[in-house]
């Protein structure tokens, strides 16, 4: 069943991706330089919306852009239309996967709450418009730096954090790649993704959604780690057993601001404000939740005061018993994107090869780029594994599994390794020594900040 879903390509997938590529290619050279080929691709993009509620605005905006006028409004329509297409791709892929896994997806029913406001967003929009006009190939040091002021202002406001973290990661890549004119290869899909998500998030009308308090037991399945130069985040995937008896997939995460020289296992030090969270992850312990806010998209907004650590509970055992037929959270309409799919699965009975698992009937790639230095899981352990808890992801035209934990045989002994085993510091002597040395970076920078920032 799963093999069929991983092998099949939903109808219309390639056509939808080709339309997305047409817009993305226009962003490489910039909306100020639309040649005949790129104009034709943009017109096909617009034509795809014929008969949809977006049709009029998309064709009008594309017409204006091709004629040489690019306003904030046109940019917003392009990003919105692109997200409708990535949303459709997401839905087709996820529906096939849900069916194969017997996963019951909750429908989205949350009303849109009040949205964000302010001058800061206008600053973000104007930088994003300049980027689109210049195109990635036109990004020089000055344009790449243009997002810095917006990021500083957004970071000062908790409601601006989501956009701040995105813009900061995106602009760091542009700064690193500038001048892009001389770059060998441009990450076309990636930058168009980041750009269009940022455009949507900088609209005053981007919806916020209310969270509701949840009680129950959180059983950990696995932990995914995220990072760019100025953020480190641990995101736990798990099962929420409600007092009423229901079981559903949820996520919960904590993120800290950092700098590029803090990376690897010592990045966990930046999450020192969350001892309960880290202890639960490091020891694979049950967490008893009392009134922890849960969003309609299945994210528990972690609050240390609403969590109590309980007994250790083996994630593999939890997955074997509870993961089949579990109910899965709805996806917020504007978060639907193939690259945002990260579905927890338990894989067993496969043959592990070099960088892939043979599931019988399909070879599933292992996403080794997502085995973080901050944890003990290595490609060698994955290759020696007999069971794997991981996230199914779709990127670059195919499915892959990102391992979060494996059961393996090392020197004839069974071992179980999880990405967050080092949440309280490395448990292995050599790594612990390296962490102690690297960790002094955190102390040095804190001391400097104390001396220089409060003058």
């Amino acid at each position, binding site marked *: 069943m799963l093999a069929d879903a991983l092998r099949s390509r939903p109808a219309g997938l*390639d056509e939808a991706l080709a339309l997305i*590529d047409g817009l993305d290619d226009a962003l490489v050279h910039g909306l100020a330089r639309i040649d005949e080929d790129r104009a034709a691709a943009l017109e096909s993009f617009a034509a795809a919306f014929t008969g949809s509620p977006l049709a009029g605005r998309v064709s009008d905006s594309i017409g204006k852009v091709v004629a040489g006028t690019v306003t904030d409004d046109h940019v917003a329509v392009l990003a919105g239309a692109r997200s409708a297409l990535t949303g459709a791709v997401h839905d087709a892929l996820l529906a096939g996967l849900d069916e194969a896994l017997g996963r019951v997806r909750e429908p989205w029913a949350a009303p849109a709450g009040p949205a964000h406001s302010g001058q800061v967003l206008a600053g973000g929009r104007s930088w994003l418009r300049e980027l689109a006009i210049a195109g990635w190939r036109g990004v020089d*040091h000055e344009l790449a730096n243009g997002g810095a002021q917006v990021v500083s202002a957004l*970071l000062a406001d*908790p409601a601006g*954090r*989501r956009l701040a*973290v*995105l813009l900061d*990661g995106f602009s*760091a890549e542009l700064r*690193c*790649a500038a001048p892009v004119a001389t770059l060998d290869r*441009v*990450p*076309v*899909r*990636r930058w168009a*993704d*980041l750009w269009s998500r940022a455009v949507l998030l900088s609209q005053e009308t981007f919806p916020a959604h209310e969270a509701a308090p949840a009680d129950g037991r959180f059983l950990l399945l696995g932990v995914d*780690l*995220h*990072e*760019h*130069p100025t*953020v*480190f*985040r641990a995101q736990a995937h798990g099962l929420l057993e409600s007092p009423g008896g229901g079981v559903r997939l949820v*996520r*919960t*995460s904590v993120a800290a*601001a950092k*700098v590029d*020289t803090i*990376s*690897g296992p010592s990045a966990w030090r*930046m*999450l020192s404000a969350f001892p309960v969270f880290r202890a639960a992850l490091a020891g694979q312990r049950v967490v008893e939740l009392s009134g922890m806010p849960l*969003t309609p998209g299945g*994210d528990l*907004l972690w609050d240390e005061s609403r969590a109590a650590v309980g007994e250790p509970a083996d994630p593999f055992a939890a997955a074997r018993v509870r993961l089949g037929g579990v109910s899965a959270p709805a996806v917020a309409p504007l*978060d639907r*994107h193939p*690259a945002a799919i990260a579905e927890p699965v338990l894989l067993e009975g496969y043959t592990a090869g070099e960088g892939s698992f043979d599931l019988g009937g399909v070879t599933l790639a292992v996403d080794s*780029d*997502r085995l*973080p*230095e*901050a944890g003990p899981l*290595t*490609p060698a352990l994955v290759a020696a594994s007999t069971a794997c808890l991981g996230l199914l992801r779709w*990127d*670059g*035209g195919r499915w892959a599994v990102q391992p979060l934990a494996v059961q393996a045989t090392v020197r004839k002994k069974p071992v179980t390794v999880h990405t967050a085993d080092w949440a309280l510091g490395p448990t292995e002597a050599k790594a612990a020594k390296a962490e102690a040395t690297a960790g*002094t*970076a955190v102390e*040095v*920078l804190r001391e400097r*900040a104390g001396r220089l*920032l409060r003058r």
Partner: protein
Amino acid sequence: MTSESDAYERRSAAPVIAPVRPRKLAKVPFVELSEGRLQGVVSSGSDVERVYVSSITAGDHGLSCNTNNNRPCGGLSGGTRACNHLRALAEAAVAQYGLDRVARYLRVTLPDGAGDLWSGLHTTTAPNRAAEVFSGFLRHLAYLEVPPTADPLPELQWFPAAGAVR
């Protein structure tokens, strides 16, 4: 179908920034390749309240070194022979980014088998950029004071944690 040749171009998670290597920060707390310069902050050997702000421009390899209070560095004194601060800066940059990446950014052609940057640098003098580099350092430090968050931050799916250089 996505072909092998354009796989990088059509990947949402295509890697762009190579992870930096860990290094000791006490002597050179801040290094960056930015705005066409290798620039950073070097601690003073004698005074904890003072730092030197040093930079090397890409292409013409213009040197600049001043204190954070904008006094010129006595070791460089407007010349083209690198002071100890510039040497420490270059050493830290190589430790953090690797020699190849620093050389490429500064547009340095290294002689075969060169172990350090200086053998390929033909230095000139450059205008003082201490004020902007130092404010960049303060912005850098300010990240350590930003409160942590439990916001779900959906866009972080595009940013996997740095993999080990195994």
